[in-house]
């Protein structure tokens, strides 16, 4: 049976640089995100993984879609570092990506879109262009 085309459309993800932010989306309370882990937020049909890197006292956001097998999964990935580079590992096949640049750290497979994150009054905001 052919079932290759059950999913044929994916949202388009594009990196947003801090200077390009038009909308600071109020995502959730800091406690909604696990310490040293990620949570997925939904914004206008986009799934964005937000990571609370408590050990480094840093927040990151990337597309939730792992580009390897096109799965909405990265928010459930384990985070850590390689050298000083913060990274997330996809739960499926342990492909790792830089949380800072979105770069794929294993091979030349395409990279992740990243988004700016800010935390104000225990609320997490993610930056979008529109």
């Amino acid at each position, binding site marked *: *049976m052919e*079932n*290759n085309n*059950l*999913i044929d459309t*994916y949202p388009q993800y594009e990196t947003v640089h801090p200077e390009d932010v038009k909308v600071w989306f109020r*995502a*959730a309370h800091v406690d*909604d*995100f*696990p*310490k*040293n*882990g990620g*949570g*997925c*937020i*939904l914004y206008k049909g986009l*799934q964005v993984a*937000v990571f609370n*890197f408590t*050990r*480094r006292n840093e927040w990151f956001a990337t597309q939730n879609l792992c580009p390897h*097998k*096109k*799965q*909405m*999964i990265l928010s*459930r*990935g*384990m*985070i*850590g*570092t*390689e*050298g*000083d580079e*913060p*990274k997330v*590992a996809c*739960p*499926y096949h*342990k492909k*790792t990506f830089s949380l800072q640049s979105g770069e794929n750290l294993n091979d030349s497979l395409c990279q992740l879109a990243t988004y700016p994150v800010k935390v104000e009054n225990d609320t997490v905001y993610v930056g979008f262009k529109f």
Partner: protein
Amino acid sequence: MKKVVIIGNGMVGYKFCEKLRTVATAEQIQVVVYGEEVLPAYDRVHLCEYFTNGSADDLLMAPTSWYAENQIELITGELVTSINREEKTISTHKNNVENYDYLILATGSRPLVPPIEGVDRNGVFVYRTIEDLDNIIDYAKNATSAAVLGGGLLGLEAAKALIDLELDTHVIEFSDRLMPRQLDEAGSDLLKYSLEQLGLKIHLGINTRSIQGNGKPESFLFQDGEQLKADMLVISCGIVPRDELARECGLEVGTRGGVVVNDLMQTNDAHIFAIGEVALHNGMIYGLVAPGYEMADVVVNQLTSTPEKLFAGFDMSTKLKLIGIEVASFGNALDLEKIGTPITYKNLKQGIYKRINISKDGSQLLGGILVGDSKDYNMLMQMSQNGMALPPNAEDLILGARGGEGMDMVGSLPDDAQVCSCENVTKADIVTSVKEKGCEDLASVKGCCKAGTGCGACTPMVNDILQQTLLSLGKRVRNVICEHFDYTRQELFDLVKIKNIKSYDELLDQFGAGDGCEICKPAVASIMASIFNELIVKQDTIQDTNDRYLANIQKGGSYSVVPRIPGGEITPEKLIVIGQVAQKYGLYTKITGGQRIDLFGARLNDLPKIWGELVKAGFESGHAYGKSLRTVKSCVGSTWCRYGLHDSVSFAIEVEERYRGLRSPHKLKGGVSGCRRECAEAQSKDFGIIATEKGWNLYVCGNGGANPQHAQLLAGDIDKKTCVKYLDRFLMFYIRTAEPLNRTATWLNKLDGGLEYLYDVVVNDCLGIGDELEKEMQGVIDTYSCEWKEVVDNEHLQAKFRHFVNSEEHDPQQAFGDMRGQKLPANWA
């Protein structure tokens, strides 16, 4: 500057060049090589590979460019026709004349062709050069059957080549044994039997009188009047030294051929040396390559340094693989009754014959024969060559230790023991390359001292010496977890336990560096789970994804749910509940290979609800997601089965419930069979229990999957209580000492001392930790609780099972199709 001319560009001629150039530059010694074949030197030992891959380049000892790079003048396709000793010149068939200071005869040998009527016909071949092979391959295209004259080493190799050409192949041997110079009658019998199984037809004790046929061979007439039909003949009856040049210029030759040389490989002309198969040393022609290399070394040594090295004869031990059958002989293999007592072992079914000859006083190993299984060759040859002491029961050497003390083979080897005979490398050379030249792996040792680069038979021993030397330097290769922890899993286990560290962050702060990663986090999670058995969702972000969500993630981000069904026993009521849950949540259902029911396609948000319904019906987590105990498979046992000896179902349930939830370096599976028919396939499990007349047999460290391995018997005919005690110890010892993601089989394979040591630890309690291991296990058992239930009862934990933190929605990108009336996930993009 000296000028050296070498006649002959075979393996030995090449090796001479190679050895010479490592000690003398072109400014010191000018080198000219003449080869009559068009190709530069190639590996004749592996000639039969030419039949399968057909590439002469693969066989070359070195490319033509090597000679240029090393400033060696190589002249191929040119035959040297005479030597003028007074003028110290040689001339060739092209009338070229070359002068020399030293002349090396490395002309080798040609095949012996017996004077049988009709050998000069087309369709009769010898087996020596690539050109011979090309001719054989060509002729075989129009042939269906072939005969090989000669059942020696080379003849059998030729026979293999002919079988590969898909010819109906016969071997005709004059002697009444195969490989008469290496094997005794029993060894020959066994080899013959094994070769016949492969389709070779072997005729022993046959004297061939004539080759008959009209222009080409059609049949062979034997002395006894018998005839054998075959379309072609390959002759491999032995070798004749190529000493014609030497004869003509008046060098001394033996009565049966060969240029007479002294211990310095000098002929009776001090400016002419002979090496390899053309040289006759002490009445002996060596038809192997290793002694030829040694002779080359002796000559290089004389041309470049003092004191001189002598050629002291050579051990003719050989190990080879003939058509997939291992054959080896070493030391004094044949000349036996006179000098010692043979011990033999023969197993026709497995095609194994082993013989060792022990000196009369029982102290020394003189030699031996191995057919069908030559893995002990290295050890045995070293023992006989170095006169090492024999173990108390010499038969252990070929039967394997049966409870006796193992030998420290490498340790008792003397420093000057020759380990690699092709390249003449001693144990001391290998030790030096590790200790002084910094080699830490096999590849660098090979590069450094060339050990194991010839035939490769010594590689296992080279590796043993490497490992032992590293050990002696305190350089044990440690498998540290990752860049964040400079500890092995076992060391981390001890640290966590002794320091009572219960959180990953605390361990990282105290003993690690950086911020952790996807390798060390699950490893530490597993260690902490094994020791403290705390709720796994407490530190959910360090768990591997399956553990984190207590379910197996599948394609498309949905999960599968497997409730525990201990021993595969289930009531109709429970079956109905599973069906109802599956219906309600739209799950694909399948019976697993481990006697359970798998429910696929559950959405993350639904998991707590699904578990809730299952828990209510009396199910609990089957830990199908964890590196932990999975199933204990069972057959139906004595309750229903007419063959069953004991109640295997009850025992399987008991064991599965005992170890449920137990976290380990990798998944664990068990099986209990009610009789030796083994319907539970317990011997392919990490632990397997099989009923016997007297009790139970306990097997451990089996493995199905990608690298199947049978479990091995740890204890036989034991009662249930003992069986459980041993299991407690075994499992906890594995959990404490295995590297992450090593199944029990892999762990055992790497365990120093293997099963014997494991037996000592578990059964004999040689480390005195039996009680401790049992107590640790009891601690885990006592603290068990169902992880699903914990989530079902805890709203705070349930909040973790959401796809979005800011929405109750399911993942909208999830998609399913259907197949045979059930759902299936979207394919990978």
